[in-house]
């Protein structure tokens, strides 16, 4: 089938969301007026010196641990020397031979399969400024606000074999980082940048093909598209007997293709040497322990726990964990809901027998309901409002209350969805909305019998079909009854009444 094998490695640069820059006290906020968030240090003015932001180092170690890396006990910084207008000192303070972390991995959950992608190394460095090319005035403009933002560079092993895997790796990485709350991971804002290294070889070849570097991809989708384009380009060349040049190519979103860089990129001689203005860092075991202790539950851990504790399917759990806050919301709801239920068994036996196993049992029972409400109606609302659980105005108690009201029959499922809409619009609780708008479910059998009379009259033909054995048509009649009551009728009761009338008597 496929006679070629693609080998992909990714280099990700992440901006850390510390309050200040890595080597100076300037704020670290995106979108300020040009050069309004700079100081002599990050401008690289003569005579200035760097001092390391402790939090940046700790964040970097946290990321390294979450990526299962070995933390180096001895950390030092080095100068990477090159000339570019966005690099004010003429060198970047980075790490060369003693990076913070090495030899880690990320488990990537790709459509049910778990693939282990190796992480070669991760290190801390300072970001450069922003260069804008103004062709109108035939010049380039430099804004140094971004200079000095702490960056974590994460280099993966060339373990990915398809563009989809690369996409999955980025998704998994972004999710892990969201859980750490250390980076915004926004490719559009530039807080996450990705370069790819891709080579193609004949299947079975031990030797790697020529590595091509791809830059200028501004979204995860672009990374996938660029890699798809590039692997085909390289396959075609190899098949035609052409040699692949080791080069850097830029992805064009407009043209959906990669192009060799216009200026011949000379091999940089970065002349790395130890940064004399920064002293080394000895990482004591107690610091590593402290950081390990401060790690939150990571995505895969939460996934496993949701499956076992809440008896969720891996599909459902997989959806919930995609957003850490949504997952937390789910757990909060599940806990609150289960706490407010009196277990049937303990009423039967003895209230004092209520214990953990009962609670766990209840938890498992309610979780499916709650998950359905979250993944279904709530997610729909979030999508249509282009929002997420953090920005929406929804109290956890109100949501739980709504679900309880639907479960108890006070309001129908269908109407419940409307109530949710009104809750999100107004910020009011479900009871208030139901009362104000008279949305309470009609469960009064008298009233329901009257509705059924009307419906059976209006749809006599269908009623006959039911009598003749087509039970499935009951659903249609229930639906019509619901319409008549604007969704307020209790559909379960309606179904029972219709069934009784048509089939039993």
């Amino acid at each position, binding site marked *: 089938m496929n006679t070629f094998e693609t080998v992909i490695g990714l280099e990700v640069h992440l901006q850390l969301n510390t309050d200040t820059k890595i080597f*100076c006290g300037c704020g670290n906020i995106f979108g300020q007026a040009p*050069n309004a968030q700079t100081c002599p240090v990050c401008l690289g003015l003569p005579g200035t010196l760097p001092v390391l932001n*402790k*939090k940046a180092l700790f964040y970097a170690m946290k990321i390294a641990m979450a990526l299962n890396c070995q933390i180096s006990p001895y950390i030092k910084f080095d100068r990477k020397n090159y000339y570019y*207008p966005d690099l004010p000192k003429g060198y970047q303070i980075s790490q060369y031979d003693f990076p913070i972390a090495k030899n880690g991995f990320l488990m990537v959950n790709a459509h049910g399969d778990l693939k282990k992608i190796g992480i070669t190394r991760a290190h801390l460095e300072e970001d450069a400024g922003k260069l804008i090319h103004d062709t109108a005035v035939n010049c380039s403009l*430099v804004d140094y606000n971004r200079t000095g933002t702490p960056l974590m560079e994460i280099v993966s092993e060339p373990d990915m074999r398809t563009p989809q895997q690369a996409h999955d790796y980025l998704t998994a990485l972004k999710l892990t980082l969201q859980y750490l709350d250390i980076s915004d991971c926004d490719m559009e804002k530039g807080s996450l940048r990705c370069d790819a290294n891709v080579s193609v070889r004949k299947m079975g070849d031990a030797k790697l093909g020529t590595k091509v570097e791809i830059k200028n991809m501004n979204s995860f989708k672009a990374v996938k598209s660029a890699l798809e384009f590039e692997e085909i380009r390289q396959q075609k060349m190899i098949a035609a007997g052409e040699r692949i040049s080791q080069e850097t190519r830029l992805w064009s979103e407009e043209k959906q293709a990669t192009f060799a860089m*216009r200026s011949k990129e000379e091999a940089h001689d970065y002349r790395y040497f130890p940064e004399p203005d920064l002293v080394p860092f000895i990482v004591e075991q107690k610091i590593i322990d402290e950081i390990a202790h401060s790690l939150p539950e990571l995505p895969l851990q939460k996934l496993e726990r949701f499956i076992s504790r809440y008896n969720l399917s891996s599909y459902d759990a997989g959806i919930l964990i995609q957003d850490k806050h949504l997952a937390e919301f789910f757990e909060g709801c599940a806990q609150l809901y289960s706490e407010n239920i009196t277990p049937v068994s303990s009423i039967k036996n003895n209230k004092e027998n209520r214990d953990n196993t009962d609670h766990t049992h209840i938890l498992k029972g309610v979780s499916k309901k709650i998950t359905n409400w979250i993944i279904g109606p709530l997610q729909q609302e979030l999508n249509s409002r282009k929002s997420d659980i953090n920005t929406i105005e929804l109290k956890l108690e109100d949501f739980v209350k709504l679900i309880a009201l639907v479960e108890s029959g006070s309001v129908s499922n269908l109407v419940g969805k409307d109530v949710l809409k009104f809750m999100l619009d107004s910020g009011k609780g479900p009871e208030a909305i139901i009362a104000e708008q008279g949305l309470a479910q009609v469960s009064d059998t008298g009233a329901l019998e009257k509705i059924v009379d009307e419906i059976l009259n209006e749809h006599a033909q269908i009623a006959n079909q039911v009598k003749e054995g087509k039970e499935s048509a009951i659903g249609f009649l229930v639906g019509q009854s619901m319409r008549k009551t604007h969704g307020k009728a209790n559909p379960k009761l309606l179904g029972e009444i219709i069934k009784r009338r048509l089939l039993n008597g």
Partner: protein
Amino acid sequence: MISKDDVRYVAHLSRIHLQDNEVDHLAKDLEKILGYIEKLKEPDITNIKPTSHVLPLKNVFREDIVRPSLKQEAVMKVAVSHHNGSFKVPQVIE
């Protein structure tokens, strides 16, 4: 030991344009100086660690607390050439 081509290459690495007579002159000077520096091959450096920091200082940090930045006007005052709050340079071709 150090040719004129070496000098031109190092000059480019250093982003300094040298006139031809400067290249000649520097080649001679550097040859002489590097010749003297050959001395460094004499001492035995087996198992000697390099000194990049002369004080045994370790773990010097700063807390993550915001300090006031310079105002844009103050930064532009320093600039050789600027436009709308940014530093202006000849067009960079990519």
